[in-house]
């Protein structure tokens, strides 16, 4: 086997160089493997959390789309009460509005229902939840009337949104 005199030194040099670089790269990789694993784990967790956040954002959008189908203005409480329970004594204590998501306004109303029976209260609750947009009860305080006939006094904080 006749080979050029320079072939073996060149081959040996290349082998030594490749082994040296390979060893350096291996040391580098081994040194970084723990940190890389940590970063991947953290990024994976971030990705999971962001996927969950996207689900929330998506639910918000669906809710807005649903509300967009409803009448722009919420149903007036007085009219709602009259329709549900004729002769209901509804007293509006306070009303406030504040901006919600762009294009929408939140309406918060504090009302009092005097001498309402359990059945009437149930009907009024039904009317609140079935109207569109629905009224949400944030706070409810009920105290039975000392008078006979199972009547009660109810204080409600209600909230809804409109355009």
């Amino acid at each position: 086997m006749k080979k050029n005199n320079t072939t073996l030194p060149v081959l040996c040099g290349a082998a030594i160089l490749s082994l040296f670089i390979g060893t350096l790269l291996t040391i580098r990789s081994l040194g970084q493997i723990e940190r890389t694993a940590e970063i991947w784990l953290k990024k994976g967790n971030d990705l999971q959390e962001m996927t969950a956040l996207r689900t929330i954002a998506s639910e918000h959008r669906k809710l807005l789309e649903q509300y967009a189908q409803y009448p722009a203005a919420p149903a007036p409480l007085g009219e709602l009460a009259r329709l549900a329970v004729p002769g209901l004594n509804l007293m509006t204590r306070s009303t406030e509005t504040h901006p919600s998501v762009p294009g929408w306004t939140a309406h918060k109303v504090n009302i009092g229902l005097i001498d309402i029976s359990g059945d009437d209260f149930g009907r009024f609750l039904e009317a609140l939840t079935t109207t569109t947009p629905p009224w949400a009860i944030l706070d409810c305080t009920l105290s039975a009337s000392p008078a006979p006939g199972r009547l009660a006094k109810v204080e409600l904080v209600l909230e809804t949104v409109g355009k």
Partner: protein
Amino acid sequence: MTPLATAPWAKTAFGIDCSERNPIIVKATKTRRSLNFENIDETTLATVPASAVIADCLLQKESFTRWLTAPIASAQKAEKVFPSLLDIQLPFSVEDCEYTLLQTRPTTDRTGTRGLVAGARTVDIEKRLTVLSALGVNPHLLDQEGLALWTQSLEESPFVKGGSELRIVLYLSTERVTLSIGQNSEFLGAHTMRQLDADQIHRILKSYFPAPPPLTQWFITGPQAILPESGESPLDSLTKRWPGPMKMTREPPTFLARALATRALTPGPIRCNLRTGRFLHPALEQRQAKRPYQWAIASLMAGLLLCTINMAWIIFGAYRAADIQKKLHALATEITGSPHGIPAGQELLASRRAIETETLAMEPFLAATDTPITPTLKTLLLVAHKEGISIETLSMSRKNRVIQGFAPKWTQAEAACRHLNNQGWVATLERKDSPPGEERVAFIIGLERSHEKK
């Protein structure tokens, strides 16, 4: 560089024993687990394939084996002084020899190193090659007779612990008798004589063992091998003085040729090739010359493989990191609704803030669907109606959820509690003292969401 003493790459080897008028030739073929032997005639040698190896040996009278002892514990250093020690022991100059160190081991007191050397004078090697050339044979390997006899005896009858301590292989041919001696599995030395001389053999054995060991194992082999029948043969005389079983080896005429072929094909202890230096076979020289190139290429390949694996790992890591980052950015863009302005690494933070702000603004929307107050109130009114419970006070807000009332019996209060639990509340029922004159049971129910429970 260590000279090649075997040819493990070869599949076939021809072992030649030229001691008789007609050479004894054995063809050994390597199979997966063993060697197959076939006795062939001289004419077949003319058609030996290039890939096969031919092994012959220098007879004991043409070569030597010596155990040398250097007073140096380091084997590497001892190897450097062995040539000088050999020079002292030989009756001719070591420069006129081809020799090879076969084995080193520490001395029993571990202060020195023993080395087994085999060699032959160059003139004897030349003569042997000339003889073989006349027969049309150009052997790749020139082994040593005594060593070959010893290892083949161990190959065919392995050393057994607790058996005979001394083993003697006696090779008998028409023109010589060769003696290979070993203790346990270690080769001690080899000797040769023109004819079987029991007294001479006794003297040789006495030089190794002043007193005969309890048991000596005799292996008789060679073309003239024959076990003693009468009680007056030289072999009988030997077994009387060195008692022990005397056995004939398998196919004694081809024993040496088998040994040479086996040693050529299989690696093992004390393998020997005295065809070295200027006598080296061209095929082995070529193979030996290739070895540095093969090593360099193998190292280069290993280095390149290391580099490739690491580069692949680095690229994969970078690709994966970029891929995750891309997904994070896409999600952040979708969540925040702002395609620009989210710095890398801030995606999660920006998304959290966006969702927090959005959730705050969405509270009036969420209240209508999420608040549990309305359905609870409805349930409570229904249960109260059904169980005959009267509610005295009720407070339902985000922080405070308490119901106070009267039930006709305690079981009805418990039933109300169960209904509330079924709605996902954790209701705590507590009995209160009823006011004087009140026959119904006074109770108080506290409500908590299951995730709020401490």
